């Protein structure tokens, strides 16, 4: 792989909650390559959204972000506000789970796309009008010319998601950050939107970070994946390798929790207990109270995220035992 497009190192985000400081994202590192789709997967509260938002400084004031995010030779975390604003919605665009939070309800869709075009392109008025229409066409909204003058509330859920993608694409971003873009949608519409994002990635040469809690979505769309638990990346690698032989016990448990064809009505290999709250993250490996492989070292020493096979990283003291168990299963 050539030099990554985005290189995140030691990203950490803290909030003040109830008089104490909690760490929502803890020492997260990953790269996004050219034209790649990286899946960020984990259960609710594991820190996926905070990771994406801290890259673009979209966290509420009071949040403290540390670490580095190298983008074209510059660090997004340290960049002055004015400069970051040009990157945000420009070379890096973001889309969200709930399109109504990103769309302005009192402006027609046309105006919202044209605003993004004005901010991030050199197009003149006529050029912006024409491009707005092309963009709605591109994201598959039928009868684009007429629908441009409608308001977001006149669109169905799937069309709003398409409109938000059109706005995000207006600036011809190099990188699209997508936070659960299909979680609120029905499965046939989710399928359409995911295929659309892949199509656009190829046609426009973008890279994508796709946040999801659905392992099926990762299997279907991503080239590489990173699994988050309690604010940390616990496993990272090619999608095929991670699915075929997970090397962190949490990933193994997550894959076992999802029903598969051929095992109907048998007990699922569930994980005991529930994910920890931010105020009480266990010492050592945060997964240890729920882990069937845990030993003393797991309760005392935090495992580093390190390579287990080329390109496949895991933060687990017993990653070989986990790999063996996954082959046996």
């Amino acid at each position, binding site marked *: 792989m050539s030099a990554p497009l985005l290189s995140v190192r030691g990203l950490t985000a803290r909030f003040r909650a109830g008089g104490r400081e909690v760490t929502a994202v803890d020492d997260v590192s990953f790269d996004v390559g050219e034209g790649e789709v990286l899946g960020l997967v984990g259960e609710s509260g594991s820190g996926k959204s905070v990771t994406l938002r801290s890259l673009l400084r979209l966290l509420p004031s009071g949040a403290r972000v540390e670490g580095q995010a190298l983008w074209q030779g510059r660090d997004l975390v340290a960049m002055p506000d004015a400069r970051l604003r040009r990157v945000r919605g420009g070379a890096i665009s973001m889309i969200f789970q709930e399109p109504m939070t990103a769309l302005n309800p009192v402006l027609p869709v046309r105006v919202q796309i044209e605003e993004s075009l004005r901010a991030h392109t050199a197009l003149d008025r006529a050029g912006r009008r024409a491009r707005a229409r092309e963009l709605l066409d591109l994201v598959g909204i039928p009868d684009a010319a007429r629908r441009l003058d409608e308001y977001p509330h006149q669109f169905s859920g799937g*069309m709003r998601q398409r409109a938000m993608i059109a706005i995000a694409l207006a600036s011809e971003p190099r990188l699209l950050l997508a936070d659960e873009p299909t979680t609120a949608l029905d499965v046939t519409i989710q*399928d359409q939107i995911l295929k659309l994002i892949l199509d656009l990635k190829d046609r426009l040469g973008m890279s994508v970070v796709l946040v999801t809690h659905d392992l099926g979505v990762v299997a279907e769309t991503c080239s590489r994946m990173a699994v988050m638990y309690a604010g940390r990346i616990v496993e990272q690698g090619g999608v095929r390798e991670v699915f075929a032989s997970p090397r962190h016990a949490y990933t193994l448990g997550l894959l076992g929790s999802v029903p598969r064809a051929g095992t109907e*009505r048998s007990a699922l290999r*569930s994980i005991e207990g529930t994910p920890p709250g931010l105020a009480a993250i266990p010492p050592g490996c945060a997964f240890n109270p729920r882990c069937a492989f845990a030993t003393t070292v797991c309760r005392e020493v935090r495992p580093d995220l390190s390579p287990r096979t080329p390109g496949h990283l895991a933060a687990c003291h017993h990653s070989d035992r986990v790999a063996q168990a996954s082959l046996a299963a």
Partner: protein
Amino acid sequence: MTEAILTAEGVSKDFPLPRSLSDRLAGRPARAVHALSGVTLEVRRGETLGIVGESGCGKSTLARCLVRLHEVDGGRVTYGGTDVATLTGAERRAFNRRVQMIFQDPYGSLNPRMTVRQILAEALSVHRMVPTARIPDRIAELLALVRLPSDAADRHPHAFSGGQRQRIGIARALSVEPEVLVADELVSALDVSVQAQVVNLLLELQERLRLTVVFVAHDLRLVRHISHRVAVMYLGKVVEVAPTATLFDDPRHPYTQALLHAAPSLDPGSRSRRAAARGELPSPIAPPPGCPFNTRCPHAFDRCPAEVPFLTSRGPDHVAACHLAAPRFESAR
């Protein structure tokens, strides 16, 4: 396992829409959401019947009609052969006890001011399930049954995680020793790792207590895992019913085929870049005439918008509502 215990026969349910002033001034007729139109389905003793479909297709409405939380507008729901709308007094109470519903929202369906003990004691005493003196023992048994620690009894619902609250809901439903459990999106609000725990519990309880379960969910993988038979709904209608393996291996309705292809598979090796279905769900206020799927179906022909297809046999215990005998899956575009 073939005896029908609970049935829907041609069940329809409309929700009238509030009429705006301009509608009234313009003399436009009152409109309604057609949540169910002519649903026929049987639930057999001892089975798990899965009901799947996309948002708004009428799954929850059907579930509520089955337990008589809604009165139907057309057709009837029967239990043990009797139209449930005719039940009154002691018979109605007996029906309410034997057919229990567990809700989607573990947060909203438990009274936050009551302890778990009070919640369970109330259910036990309303239906006079055990003598008062036996209530504490029975509560301990129920908590053990759903694998909650016994000290859970004196805590309030907010002191539990989502998965544990769902177990409290299950314990409450089981406290009255029902025959049928109707579970509406039982685990949808839970994280995957916790979903698996609740699914395992449900499977085990069903075997032990010989329960009949109606499992309503939009998650195809879960429904496949749990159900003996599956019914697929689209826009207020049942479009296909079959034993689980048949439905997933040999779906005969073009909508079922699209739905199964649209669901992301867990195998990174089998990817497709073409969307499984085109277009979006039509509004249940004005469903398309004829076959409800005709606006999105790759096989639609002149008969489809003109004539409603009825459920007809496609093999042993397998019915589908399509004018074509054996359409083959085609992706969008």
